[in-house]
């Protein structure tokens, strides 16, 4: 495992000069992932902030081969590229020992919602690739509309905090658990707040053949209404309150990792979810009088999902 100093010496494959917002989780996550591996990579990316901000013609921020096809098909697209790689090896057009890693990126809209079929299909078919969802919990590129990843109570432009309804009414879909049903060799949740945990997981995934999935928590200053320099603190807080546990599932074996493991084993204290919610403007209305039940419900749901995960991890 490379240490921080060694990582700084590696070549950036997502270069500076792209037009993502300051403090955007997506660019941090992508850079960390690409720094974590020395293998050549081919990247596909769903339509979304990451794609539109890094490839404004005639410029590209990508120093590795990159393809954007459409919104809902990042996984199907990379599966085609991976199949071509295999076929060219079989035909002797590419040396049999050449190694290339295939990584598909998508936001939560392109992954939880419109792209879930394409993703599920590619995982089931067993292509050798890693899918990374940078989950900023809403359709940020089109202007902060709610997705199935948007947490309960969050104000978005299509689930605004109104006089009658305090933000999104539903709890978010647990996509990582949906993907777990595909019985992959490896899947995990990560947070850029705990970057060494993220890097370790990437390194591990890159050595595993077959389909891998990574759900990466991705703060969005614009959509979540927080300062640009608060992204990493918020990414930590989400883990610390167990709203976003970091864990991995290797061949159906659950294991909480890093900070989440420390909390599960009593070595760190679990912080209240309200600390996390208070850090962002999208939850501000929940602290107004009358919404106490919503806050209580969110804490209970986080606890329920956390306890299930702790049990699955054998603690």
């Amino acid at each position, binding site marked *: 495992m490379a240490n921080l100093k060694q990582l700084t010496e590696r070549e950036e494959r997502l270069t500076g000069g792209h037009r993502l917002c300051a403090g955007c989780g997506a660019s941090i996550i992508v850079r960390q992932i690409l720094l974590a591996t020395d293998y*050549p990579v*081919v990247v*596909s990316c769903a339509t979304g902030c990451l*794609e*539109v901000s890094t*490839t*404004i*013609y*005639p410029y*590209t921020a*990508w*120093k*590795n*081969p*990159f*393809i*954007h*096809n*459409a919104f*809902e*098909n990042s996984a*199907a*697209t*990379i*599966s*085609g*590229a*991976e*199949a*071509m*790689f*295999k*076929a*060219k090896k*079989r*035909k002797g*057009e*590419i040396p049999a020992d050449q190694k*290339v890693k295939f990584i598909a990126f998508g936001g939560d809209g392109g992954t939880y919602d419109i792209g879930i*079929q*394409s993703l*599920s*299909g*590619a995982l*089931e*078919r067993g292509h050798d690739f890693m899918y990374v969802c940078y989950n900023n919990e809403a359709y940020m590129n089109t202007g902060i509309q709610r997705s199935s990843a948007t947490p309960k109570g969050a104000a978005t432009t299509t689930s605004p905090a109104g006089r009658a309804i305090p933000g999104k009414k539903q709890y978010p879909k647990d996509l990582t658990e949906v993907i777990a049903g595909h019985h992959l060799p490896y899947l995990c949740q990560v947070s850029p707040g705990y970057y060494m945990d993220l890097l370790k997981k990437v390194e591990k995934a890159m050595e595993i053949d077959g389909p891998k999935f990574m759900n990466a928590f991705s703060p969005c200053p614009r959509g979540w209404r927080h300062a640009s320099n608060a992204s990493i603190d918020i990414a930590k807080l989400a883990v610390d309150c167990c709203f976003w546990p970091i864990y991995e599932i290797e061949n159906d074996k659950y294991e909480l990792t890093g900070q989440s493991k420390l909390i599960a084993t009593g070595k760190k204290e679990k912080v209240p979810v309200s600390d996390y919610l208070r850090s962002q403007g999208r939850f501000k209305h929940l602290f107004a009088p009358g919404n106490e039940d919503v806050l209580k419900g969110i804490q209970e749901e986080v606890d329920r999902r956390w306890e299930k995960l702790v049990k699955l991890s054998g603690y």
Partner: protein
Amino acid sequence: MAKSMALTGNFAAAYATKQINPHVVAAYPITPQTTMMEKFSEYYANGEVDTELICVESEHSAMSACVGAAAAGGRVITSTAANGLALMFEIVYIAASNRLPIVMCVMNRALSAPINIHGDHSDSMGCRDSGWIQIYNENAQEVYDTMFMATRIGEHKDVRLPVMVNLDGFITSHKIEKVDTLEDDEVRKFIGEYQPVYPLLDIENPVTYGPLDLTDYYFEHKRQQVEAMKKALPVIKKVSSEYSNLCGRDYGIMEKYHLDDADCAIVTMSSTAGTTKYVVDKLRAEGKKVGLLKVRLFRPFPAEEIREALAGIKNIAVLDRSESFGAFGGPLFSEVRNAMYDTDERPNIVDYVFGLGGRDINAVQIEGVYKRLMDAKDKMPGDVNYLGVRGD
């Protein structure tokens, strides 16, 4: 020595695909396309091809995987029909706009609703502005031969466009016909080695596919696509002529059947051309000067060649196997009439929409159309008619 085989249109397409031995095939089953993919899956399972076969979970993912595979730098084939083509519509445009030479068989079938599994051209006609080359085939032999030509045409450096190989659902896809085949090495020699252009898998020279292209560049890129389509026409003619040198079957972009001295002509596509030839033979035996123009290449539409082919003919009927709701006539009619506007004599041109949802068209009906053309006085209204439907 090449052998003759008894093949359905779908098996002919599958056999051609096996001989092309593409890098990647990605497809999803839909009637009446299924038997092509079933047959190809047998070749794959028996190790007769080097192909990676991707059995995707939808047509949308079929075309998406084809785009990823073709961009990665190799030969890619798929096939679909009707609702399947409609589902992949978004990515059909993306394939063409990224200049990826994918070959797709479309077993032409009616679009829902109501659901109907039989043949008409409403599926591929819905994609006529997508930037794909479209070739319509009369029979299984033509389908077989066109697969190899399509491979060459799409990959030509001046073209770099995807090619749709159309055949009539059930009528051609499931009918068994005699097909003269080529030897594998003849096919290999004709299609040649694939020459990748900006492949994703060239790790040393990374490229970005599918960037955000705004008001400052998008229009130029679309204009370049127009140019590629224009350049496709001479390439298609050249490839067809080379193919004819190989096996003697000369298709070109259209077939002129007794047109030279004809007073009246029908213009149509695909299997209906076969039925029309039978009627032409019958009427010619009676001394009637009738002819047929079978349009094979619909995109790019060869307007100049159509004008030349129909020069001197007074009365023309276009037989359209699809409706363009709210338009003045079917797609083939609109194109043909548009092309003929520039001629001095401006012939009478009428439209007959027929065969929607696989409704049979027979020789008597076609003869009736010829009769109207033959009986017509000097001027005919350019009307749109519906052939073989109740109430008309």
